[in-house]
């Protein structure tokens, strides 16, 4: 076990996997950086530093800097996958999905099904997402709900360095397209990472903690917010189950339903606006399939139905907070 942050866990995994499988290629804007400049391809490894060192090792044929053309990036990834490669395409900000959504939702997601089942399109799209850096309305969104709704895609939200490694490795072994969401505010989060080959199967939630009084399902960065809230609640004698689904498609429904069966109370935390969100999706699931378990109305803690504002005070107010989670937990416990 080594201690490292999520950025490094992703970077190392890319190194290891590209070493293992010569079919893996990386493409995106500035994934190496410096193409066509006097400074040369510098391999700072992208705006986020996650692809550092790769071009030096694997060359410009496998670590491909592209023009600003997201449709062509994702479309090229799709075509390369149909032609037998394993492309990892980077969307520098998940918000840019708007300029390349077709290649994801109508192409990559549907090839296997439309083409009769024999065509694999194992593209991994890395989407850097999330609020918290005052990057404003067009650089802060968490569009995982949108892609979770699309049949044919798998959607992954790692929240620890170990999970980042295990889930990315898994993505690079599978035959299905994987939307790999990396929260920009989590890159520096540290933790232990298993050495050597390490895969985490999709559809298996991580039980972050068990507390028995209430079930908190938290997505992405909200897991750590939930932990903060749970710490405060623990001090008041309230025990929280915290579930990190890790993948939202497939979703580990069983883990959620089992926990709610024990606790009877559910809070879902999601850094998105509420409508057609993962939060609503999970609450709907439990209402349908865990109805008898529920002792109180489930609650969501989400952002409001507004774009993401720029100013610090506003973004802070926009984001769900540990305090909001605490209030919601108290709400479901005090209910009735």
């Amino acid at each position, binding site marked *: 076990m080594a201690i490292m942050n999520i950025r490094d866990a992703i970077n190392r995994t890319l190194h290891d996997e590209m070493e293992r499988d010569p079919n893996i290629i990386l493409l995106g804007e500035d994934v190496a950086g410096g193409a066509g400049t006097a400074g040369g391809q510098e391999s700072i490894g992208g705006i986020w530093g996650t692809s550092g060192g790769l071009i030096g090792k694997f060359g410009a044929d496998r670590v491909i800097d592209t023009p600003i053309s997201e449709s062509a990036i994702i479309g090229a990834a799709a*075509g390369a996958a149909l032609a037998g490669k394993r492309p990892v395409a980077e969307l520098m900000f998940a918000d840019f999905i708007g300029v390349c959504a077709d290649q994801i939702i109508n192409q990559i997601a549907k090839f296997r099904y439309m083409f009769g089942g024999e065509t694999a399109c194992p593209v991994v799209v890395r989407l850097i997402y999330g609020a918290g850096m005052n990057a404003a309305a067009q650089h802060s969104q968490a569009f995982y709900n949108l892609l979770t709704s699309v049949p044919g895609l798998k959607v992954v939200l790692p929240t620890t360095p170990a999970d980042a490694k295990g889930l990315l490795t898994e993505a690079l072994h599978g035959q299905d397209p994987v939307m790999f969401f990396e929260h920009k505010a989590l890159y520096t989060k540290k933790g232990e990472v298993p050495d050597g080959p390490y895969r985490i199967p999709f559809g298996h939630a991580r039980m972050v903690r068990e507390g028995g009084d209430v079930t908190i399902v938290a997505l992405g960065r909200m897991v750590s917010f939930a932990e903060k809230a749970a710490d405060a609640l623990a001090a008041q004698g309230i025990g929280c189950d915290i579930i990190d689904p890790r993948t939202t498609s497939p979703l580990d429904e069983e883990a959620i339903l089992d926990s709610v069966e024990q606790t009877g109370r559910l809070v879902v935390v999601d850094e998105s606006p509420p409508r057609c969100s993962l939060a609503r999706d999970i609450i709907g699931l439990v209402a349908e399939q865990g109805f008898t378990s529920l002792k109180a109305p489930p609650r969501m803690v989400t952002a409001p139905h507004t774009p993401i504002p720029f100013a610090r005070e506003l973004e802070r107010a926009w984001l769900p907070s540990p305090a909001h989670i605490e209030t919601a937990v108290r709400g479901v416990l005090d209910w009735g």
Partner: protein
Amino acid sequence: MAFAHNSLSQEALLDAYRRMATIRQFEERLHEEIKTGEIPGFTHLYCGQEAAAVGVCSHLDDEDMIVSTHRGHGHCIAKGCDVIAMMKEIYGKRDGLCKGRGGSMHIADTKIGMLGANGIVGAGAPQAVGAAIAAKMDGRRKVAIAFSGDGACNQGTTFEAMNMAVVLKVPAIFVFENNHYSEHTGYSYAVGTSGDIASRAEAFGMKAWRANGSDFFDTYAAFGDLLAHVRGGHGPAAIELDTERFYGHFEGDPQRYRGPGELDRIRAERDCLIAFRQSSGIAADALDSIDAEVAALIDEAVTAARAAPVSEPAHVLEDVYADY
């Protein structure tokens, strides 16, 4: 035309004719069969453009890849898809080429380098660039071809793809079939350009060719030239093929946008099968017997497609993922 006679073997010529005739009869037959109401969905016929698909694909082998459009039957047949399995697909049958889940607009056979017809105009061009990235990595002089229409050439994806292909110097080939219409809109209206469509490709710094896409020999020759360039490692290239579609945009289109006599004229003057007969130097009866064989094949395909079993409701759930 001299070129073709000299460079193509008799066998290759017969094969090209067979492919064009197969496309033609496949489409003409669909035009009839659609009236029975048995064929589901939207169908876009390739009639009139056969020389384009075949002039291009006759140069290719299974390792080369093509990406097609909503008007994809011709590309599929030219690339070698099984005609009976295609017909079953278009009828929506269980043992169709895509298990009846894709239909006319989504036929693919990746094993032979047919990476898919596509219902989204312009979606294919970037995919061809990706396939060309793969081809370049594999280093076996393979190429990847995007077929696009005169309408698709205005979609942002097509421009992005051309630029990216130039930047990455990959063996991607952009084949623009200019049949003068995108749906009901005329080419001259929708394509803002200083020259032809090929000139747009040239503006990206790639070499471009032009040919008569209603003439097999002209297309074949020009594309041969182009292909030598691309297989030689000189990066992407483009070709514009001037051609005609003999039917409406989709089956059911009243075609009020056509000029008086236009359909008759193009049938009379720009039929690639007639042109082939006139200039191939092959005896008419050899071509006639191919026509007859093709007719039998198409008959067989329709009969098989009509008789083929439909899917069970449970099949709807198959093949969304490899595993989930």
